[in-house]
């Protein structure tokens, strides 16, 4: 039950921007250098994040990427859904038609997958980029 690397890097890229360049556009090359994620991979990911309205591009000499919304309005859940589309670990949670079992009218397990989905969603929907930025900066400030 694994989350894609792409999702993890998407969050990492956004938190990097929120921490290091909250007000000015930043170039992918810079982010790649500091995070160790390749430029090509970041471009792919940022394209999706831009399409989802989480990032903006700025043209020109001082161009690059900028958060499209305030960090307190972007949750981890929003970022993950942009890449994964759906956070349910089993398809039937959001789409009953996805179940082709002949005995689905007596299904014994869908309620479990629904509760598991709730647990995952309530965790990721309650962490914002602002929360992460603040606790990252606190930790750094504490000399950790």
């Amino acid at each position, binding site marked *: 039950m694994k989350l894609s690397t792409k999702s993890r890097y998407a969050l990492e890229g956004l938190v990097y921007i929120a921490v290091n360049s909250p007000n000015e556009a930043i170039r992918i090359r810079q982010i790649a250098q500091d995070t160790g994620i390749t430029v090509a991979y970041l471009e792919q990911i940022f394209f999706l994040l831009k399409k989802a309205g989480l990032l903006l591009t700025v043209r020109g000499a001082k161009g690059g990427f900028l958060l499209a919304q305030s960090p307190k309005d972007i949750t981890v859940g929003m970022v993950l859904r942009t890449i994964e589309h759906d956070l349910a670990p089993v398809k039937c949670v959001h789409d009953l038609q996805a179940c082709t079992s002949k005995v689905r*009218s007596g299904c*014994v397990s869908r309620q479990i997958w629904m509760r598991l989905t709730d647990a995952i969603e309530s965790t990721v929907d309650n962490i914002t980029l602002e929360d992460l930025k603040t606790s*990252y900066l606190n930790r750094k400030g504490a000399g950790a």
Partner: protein
Amino acid sequence: MKISTRGRYGLRAIIDLAMQENKSCVSLGEIAARQDISFHYLEGIFSYLRRAGIVIGTAGALGGYTLSKTALEMSLYDILKVLEGQLSMTGDEAPEQETELRAFLRQEVWDAVDKSIENALKQMTLGEMKETFRKRDDSNFCAGL
């Protein structure tokens, strides 16, 4: 981030087994028929569950499988952990070399999600599943199907 076929089918089969409480042993043939899962597939899953100590197998004409503990003592976490191998969203242990930011996200986000999955599954027992299933009004619950 998906639960594998083995995890989904295996859990259904185990809940089915837990529901046959007045039988000392349940044959895989019965479970296969009730749950519409291939018998051969179930054989593979159950030999695995037996080795992991989740079920006890009895050979012979009246043989079959039974839970190794009572349904109330068995959490869904115990079972899915065996079926899925591991339930972590990011999989592996912390790598030796990691940037400060990545280590931070692992602890603050990915480990927190793993913990919420673990807690949710530890709170649910086979006993509770059995109870919910018995109580629910089939015709009503399945109206949307």
